[in-house]
């Protein structure tokens, strides 16, 4: 069929030759490629600027803005959850303490776990990925920036709702995994469990949206030349995590909704009297819950792999082996969930399988540790704060890993199940495996984000106080657990003999808090009172994010880079260094092929719009409505449907602008 007949409505210069069309385009359209200081660069900064005012604030969809919002919000939630943890330690520091009652204590530990896992650990890692990945792979924004912006608002509103519920004595009280029947319709009275289910629906929807965004960004928006084999390890870690999220998170979202149906509509999924099964919830939860640990741990491995080469002053030893280990860890983590259920009546043969899997997952992690040790051993070490935190990570994660091997065996697990031994193990793994690398990453990328260096002196104080504090808080818990102290008790008698070690643990918490306080002081001091500027590459690192100014320009790169090696900044200049010819007048980027990163098409990024925020708000109204009213569950769907429709509806002005740049495939 003739094109002209096929496309009667599209005003395109159809009959002109391509060369002629391009020549005339060049006269009217401004293209990038000239680098900083050029007219195109100034135009690019204007194009990528967020709109002013409140509307602009709510519409912003730059990956740096969204990523930073995620990280800052996650730290605020973590601070609140940390205060709850402190309260619990304070309560248990002495025997027969009645500082808080049993009901409030139930809410405290449920909120602490829920907020730390769903509102801190996963979002903060995704926030980092949103901020760093596009800079590391050499693109101007993520693939679906509006979707990530919407995810942020869902996350914020969901978190506020959960803490709002807690403030009005409606905080969840059935643990962070909300086991039925305790959280079911029969025993979970009031609206407490409903809020937990809602929060999970929120945070998982958010996590899935960001995961799809990051996966697509990594696969399709890498700079030309950045083949999969040359992709930085942190980007690999983000990719593996995002794919894992896509396969694991639907499970808990589905599960939480089934519990909600049981509570709201009278279904019987978890009701044994009517053919349901409470154990089904444990399967649903842990099939997600175990990979969840790795959503937190794998990005942290990525941080470590990004930081070690910089401070060892050499490329990573065993780059390919680390990539394969990350992928293997991702796969194996789906075969571990039953080791959380060793105390249930599952077949013994099945338990042996999960024991074997639990041991096996130590192999890829060990392999990475050996690669890091080799890199450090063969490098010239520069001892700065980020590197200190990486060393702390080694030490604490190792202890957590060793108790993990112990808990992986059924007989030992049965002895210490639901005791403080498990609390000790999980805090060693999560703090060692995620929080230490997270602090390392914060110190490492802070100058890139703010353009200022954090104080080294305060950083070292922070490290040592935090390191000593964490060990003092959680190490005694191993012994308490072996002495039989159960989890989730709000008080205990003096005759148990648990008092001395509990007091040590509480003291450790105070030291730990002091360290965190110093960190907060360091942040505030640097951001508000320090004028000294950081250079583009203050650590002398080799990956792309350090090639742009600190903080990066709004459009990230005035000319997209062309990459020829894993550490482009450490390599001699290549023959072809950058891309030219993308629009400076609309938000345009370049898509490349999945494996070889060959230039494929130009891509017009979605412009900032208010609709993602409106959509998130309307989804919130729906979920809250559905907690109180069954018809609300159906009618409440109408506003989100309208919001998504308006979100998608083409903006005429934008369409006309983009048409000027259109080129057919």
């Amino acid at each position: 069929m003739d094109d002209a007949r096929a496309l009667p409505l599209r005003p395109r210069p159809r009959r002109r030759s391509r060369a002629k069309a391009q020549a005339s385009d060049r006269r009217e359209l401004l293209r990038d490629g000239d680098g900083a200081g050029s007219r195109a660069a100034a135009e690019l900064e204007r194009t990528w600027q967020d709109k002013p005012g409140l509307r602009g604030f709510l519409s912003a969809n730059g990956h740096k803005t969204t990523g930073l919002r995620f990280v800052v919000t996650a730290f605020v939630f973590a601070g609140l959850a940390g205060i709850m943890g402190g309260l619990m330690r304070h309560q248990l520091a002495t025997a027969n303490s009645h500082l808080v009652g049993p009901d409030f204590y139930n809410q405290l530990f449920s909120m602490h776990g829920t907020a730390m896992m769903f509102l801190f650990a996963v979002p903060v890692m995704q926030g980092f990925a949103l901020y760093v990945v596009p800079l590391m792979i050499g693109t101007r924004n993520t693939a679906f920036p509006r979707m990530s912006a919407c995810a942020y608002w869902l996350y914020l509103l969901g978190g506020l709702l959960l803490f709002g519920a807690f403030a009005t004595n409606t905080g969840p009280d059935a643990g962070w995994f909300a086991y039925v029947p305790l959280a079911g319709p029969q025993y979970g009275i009031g609206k407490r469990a409903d809020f937990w289910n809602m929060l999970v629906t929120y945070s998982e929807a958010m996590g899935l949206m960001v995961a799809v965004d990051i996966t697509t960004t990594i696969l399709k928006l890498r700079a030309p030349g950045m083949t999969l084999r040359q992709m930085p390890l942190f980007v690999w870690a983000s990719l593996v995590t995002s794919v894992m999220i896509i396969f694991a998170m639907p499970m808990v979202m589905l599960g939480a909704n089934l519990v909600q149906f049981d509570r709201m509509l009278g279904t019987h999924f978890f009701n044994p009297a009517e053919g349901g099964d409470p154990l089904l919830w444990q399967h649903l939860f842990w099939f997600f819950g175990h990979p969840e640990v790795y959503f937190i741990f794998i990005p942290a491995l990525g941080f470590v792999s990004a930081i070690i080469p910089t401070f060892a002053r050499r490329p990573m030893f065993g780059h390919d082996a680390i990539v394969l280990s990350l992928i293997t860890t991702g796969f194996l983590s789906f075969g571990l969930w039953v080791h959380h259920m060793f105390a249930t009546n599952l077949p013994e043969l099945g338990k042996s399988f999960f024991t074997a899997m639990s041991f096996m997952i130590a192999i890829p992690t060990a392999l990475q540790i050996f690669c890091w040790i080799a890199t450090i051993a063969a490098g010239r070490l520069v001892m700065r704060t980020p590197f200190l935190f990486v060393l702390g990570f080694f030490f604490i994660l190792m202890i957590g890993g060793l108790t993990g091997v112990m808990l992986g065996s059924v007989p030992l697990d049965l002895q210490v199940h639901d005791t403080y031994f498990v609390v000790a193990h999980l805090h060693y793994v999560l703090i060692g495996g995620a929080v230490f690398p997270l602090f390392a990453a914060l110190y490492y990328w802070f100058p890139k984000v703010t353009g200022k260096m954090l104080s080294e002196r305060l950083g070292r104080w922070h490290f040592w106080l935090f390191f000593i504090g964490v060990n003092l808080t959680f190490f005694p818990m191993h012994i308490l657990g072996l002495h039989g102290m159960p989890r989730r008790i709000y008080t205990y008698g003096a005759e148990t003999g648990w008092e001395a070690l509990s007091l040590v643990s509480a003291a450790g918490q105070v030291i730990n808090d002091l360290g965190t306080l110093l960190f907060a002081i360091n942040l505030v001091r640097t951001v508000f009172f320090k004028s000294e500027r950081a250079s583009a590459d203050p650590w002398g690192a080799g990956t792309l994010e350090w090639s742009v100014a600190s903080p990066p320009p709004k459009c990230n790169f005035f000319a997209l880079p062309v990459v020829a090696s894993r550490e482009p900044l450490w390599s001699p200049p290549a023959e072809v260094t950058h891309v030219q010819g993308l629009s400076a007048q609309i938000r345009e980027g370049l898509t490349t092929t999945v494996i070889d990163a060959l230039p494929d098409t130009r891509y017009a990024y979605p412009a900032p719009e208010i609709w993602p925020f409106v959509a998130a708000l309307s989804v919130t109204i729906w979920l809250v409505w559905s907690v109180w009213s069954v018809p609300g569950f159906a009618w409440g769907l109408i506003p989100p449907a309208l919001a998504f429709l308006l979100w998608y509806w083409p903006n005429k002005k934008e369409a006309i602008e983009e048409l000027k740049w259109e080129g057919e495939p």
Partner: protein
Amino acid sequence: MGGRAVTRREATPASVPAVRKGDALDVSGLPSYGFAHRSLMWWGNAGMMTIEGVAFGFMIVIYFYLRDIARVWPDSGRVPALLFGTINLGVILASAWPNYLAQKAAQDRSLLRVRLWLYVCSLFGIALCAVRWFEFTALNVRWDDGAYGSVVWVLLGLHSFNLVTDVLDTFVLTAVTYSKPVEGKRYVDIAENCGYWYFVVLTWLPIYAVIYFGARI
């Protein structure tokens, strides 16, 4: 330039190459959109389909988990009537054909054909939603009768949610073809919506089998 030439070029990525100019790679001649896996929309869509596919898969696992521990299945004693579900199976399989033509028309960027087949797809969608309504009434069980009723309702409900969503998407996309100017990337959206429809069609096969024969066999 003929439609077939467009199709042929579609098959090879980076068909209009980036040109080297000094130390720069000039990409101004590259297309501003591409179909199938060249488009980001395809990848986003694939991600969403994976998420929903995982949810469907787990719902089926839950069905058999509950069936496994039940003494009598279905515990209500009455199996779902076959008629409406089977009608739906026929209609939904037939709908793949106009859907294919709509996708093809979008790839050819033929606005008139796109509109025509989107209208036909919308009619199919309305018919499917109507039959689906009767399907719920013919399940012969309420969601609160027991675990069997719960799992059947949620399984059918999940698929219906996707069905209704995609039918609404089809309405919206039909309307968008009247919002001028129609950019090239809208044709990609239409083609990807058709891709999603295949997902709705294909997932119905196992769900139909489980709902209607899981209670019989």
